[in-house]
């Protein structure tokens, strides 16, 4: 029998080298490298100028560790978003998944008590796992709502964000008496965050491009009918994709909160739009985990730089500097423009019996 999956055309992989997109990405990479080199030389020649200060910031260990810390939620949520969207479910609720895991990881750690262990696991590890579980559970609900009850994915994703935005500060007030939790006194080092980001990126890339599951996932988003014809359940694959987005975002949200040892629930919470920036990161990376990694690190680096700029006491108002990553996101999105959504993303699939 002919295997219809062979005919599933997956342009992102097939045309990777030919793609204009990759060329422009390479160009952007070279431009960035050139800029950094100029900055570095300028900084060395004129150490007292603004260029010197900027170079000091860019090539600074503090900036590097801050980037690693801030990149974790963006890159991991972006990887999760790729899995969900590749399978055909647009998960705009990544922000909510980050929020809920950030809170639950801190709560669970404080419940166990910093320094205590459960079954040999330190409290902070238990917190990490609890954060992942909470995020996966919320993603599971989102999956059921979208796949079984055929909800509008954008609105349901928005609901996930709004529910988490309400629930996390609500629970924080119930348990700790305020929207911000007290500091745990323990935290996860930046090197762990960096390691998780790198491992997750590599694993996601491998899973998507070199496993049967990855092929099913892409088929569920591009041509669900073909997948159905070879006898693989489309909705099961999509549930898996959405759950994976929950697990990965859970790792990211827990890493964000536990790297500080506290959950901040005021305003937009400590997540502050990182879930939405993650969406742009994977769009920028054109659904390629490595591209999403690059974009995520770039956005995190911008964020880290503005923190350092503030510490150096520049007269530029810090709020204006904070705006840079958001402007960059819009410019990037306008330039990259036509990102190609998976063919069947956002659509419900009815099994034909």
């Amino acid at each position, binding site marked *: 029998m002919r295997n219809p999956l062979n005919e599933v055309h997956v342009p992102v992989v097939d045309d990777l080298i030919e793609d204009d997109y990759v060329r422009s990405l390479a160009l952007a990479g070279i431009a960035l490298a050139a800029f950094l080199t100029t900055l570095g030389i300028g900084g060395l020649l004129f150490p007292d100028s603004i260029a010197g200060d900027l170079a000091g910031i860019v090539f600074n260990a503090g900036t590097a560790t801050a980037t690693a810390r801030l990149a974790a939620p963006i890159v991991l949520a972006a990887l999760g978003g790729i899995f969900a969207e590749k399978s055909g479910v647009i998960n*705009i609720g990544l922000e909510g998944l980050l929020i809920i895991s950030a809170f639950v990881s801190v709560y669970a750690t404080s419940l166990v008590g910093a320094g205590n262990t459960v079954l040999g696991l330190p409290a902070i590890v238990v917190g990490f796992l609890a954060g992942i579980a909470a995020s996966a*559970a919320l993603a*599971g*609900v989102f999956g*059921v*709502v979208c796949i079984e*009850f*055929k*909800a*509008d994915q*954008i*609105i*349901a994703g*928005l*609901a*996930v*964000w*709004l*529910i*988490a*935005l*309400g*629930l996390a*500060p*609500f*629970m924080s*007030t*119930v*348990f700790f008496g305020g*929207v911000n939790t007290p500091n745990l006194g323990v935290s996860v080092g930046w090197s762990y965050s960096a390691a998780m980001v790198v491992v997750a990126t590599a694993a996601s890339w491998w899973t998507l491009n070199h496993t049967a599951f990855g092929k099913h996932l892409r088929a569920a988003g591009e041509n669900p009918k073909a997948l159905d014809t070879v006898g693989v359940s489309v909705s099961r694959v999509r549930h898996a994709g959405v759950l994976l987005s929950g697990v990965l975002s859970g790792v990211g949200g827990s890493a964000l909160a536990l790297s500080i040892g506290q959950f901040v629930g005021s305003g937009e919470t400590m997540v502050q*739009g990182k879930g*939405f920036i993650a*969406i*742009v990161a994977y*769009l920028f990376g054109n659904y390629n985990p490595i591209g999403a990694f690059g974009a995520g690190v770039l956005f995190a680096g911008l964020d880290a730089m503005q923190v350092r700029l503030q510490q150096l006491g520049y007269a530029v*108002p810090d*709020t*204006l500097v*904070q*705006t840079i990553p*958001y*402007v960059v*996101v*819009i410019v990037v*999105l*306008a*330039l990259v*423009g*036509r*990102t190609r959504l998976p063919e069947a993303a956002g659509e419900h699939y009815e099994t034909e019996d």
Partner: protein
Amino acid sequence: MSRIDAIARSIREFLRTFVDLSVAERLLISVAAIFLSVVVGFFIILASGRVAACETAAWTMPVTGLGFCYDPFQVYAVLFNGALGYPFAFGEPGLFNPDWTPFNLSLGLTLSETTLLVFTGLSVAVAFRAGLFNIGTQGQLVVGGLATALVVVAAAPVFPTGRLGGIALIVIGVFAGAIAGGVWGAIPGALKAYADANEVITTIMLNFIAANIAYVLVLEVFRAEGSSVVATQYVPEHAQIQPWFFPGSADFAEAALLAGVLFVVGLYVLIEHTTFGYDLRTSGIQPAAAEYGGVNAKLTTVRAMTLSGALGGVGGAVWVLMSEGRWIASVPDLGFDGITVSILAGNNPLGVFPAAFLFGLLKGGALEIGFQTDVPTELVAVLRGLIILFVAMPEFFRMIGRYAGLDGSGPASGATDDSAAASEGGEADA
């Protein structure tokens, strides 16, 4: 027993006439979503009341004797009764509170929120009908409100201080807000039309940018002298929209609500009964067909987003001129709540009014919950999210409808509806 059956049957008959009507169905789904959210919220209150620490139990569950720190019945009673200023006197001999007047502070606060949400809800609804998801109403409101405050403060010395001068200033201020909000809304519209940049992302980013830029502008340039918070100067008293009957501390003016109602009717006519509205709707439903039919879809996209932004800007103007009297950096989440309002209203301008009133109630009620109970007021934000989630899944309610026999294919009783709702509640809790 047979009598209950008969009642159930007649209710079913009544509902069946609605099943095929899409507007009525939407209405039914919205009501069911609200009900379901209240049910789920009930369990969230119970669960959090079980784990919270308190001296004495506020509510003890019958039969089991378990004590809870929060009393869910009291929470809901305070939420809805309090938002209206306690017209009902529970547990008293007469059901109604004899001291209640309609022009009380709580109802004023509720209606103030309602008024603002009418504008932001309309803003989101207009974009939605054009097939655009404007999450940027918040940013458009921030920008529009700032423009209003600055223009009115700058123009005030030119106009006489009488009533007429005040009205002129208010009109100028609202126009300034509409223009600024419209420009801010046109940006994602143009990006969508000509660069194919997803408007969901760009509007979210523009929200952050608007908040930051407005903050810096006011902090560095326009900050009122001696102000401890980041805020502009107050607009002169006569340029603020004043209440007729309600107490001034409620920050509510009947005239603004009336204007909101006019906007609702105006937009309904615009969307349903004009050529522009037709272009808007067709490019929302079938962009390719609209283009084929001679509609300039790109231009319609920009226009729709500009109109949407202008409405958000008017919302900001009303917020400045009615609620605050100045632009202040802590802008409430009116734009985000506008999304909820629009979705609950089925993106129909006529539905925006009742939906805005419901969220006005929740807002007014949240304040009362803060005063009267120990339950965190963030509960209301959770309810908001739940309502959106349930409205997003009409298929779920259709399934229940089919299960309950609303399509006439089988007998059922009203009880199945409730038990299905309750089990769903447990799931969403997780």
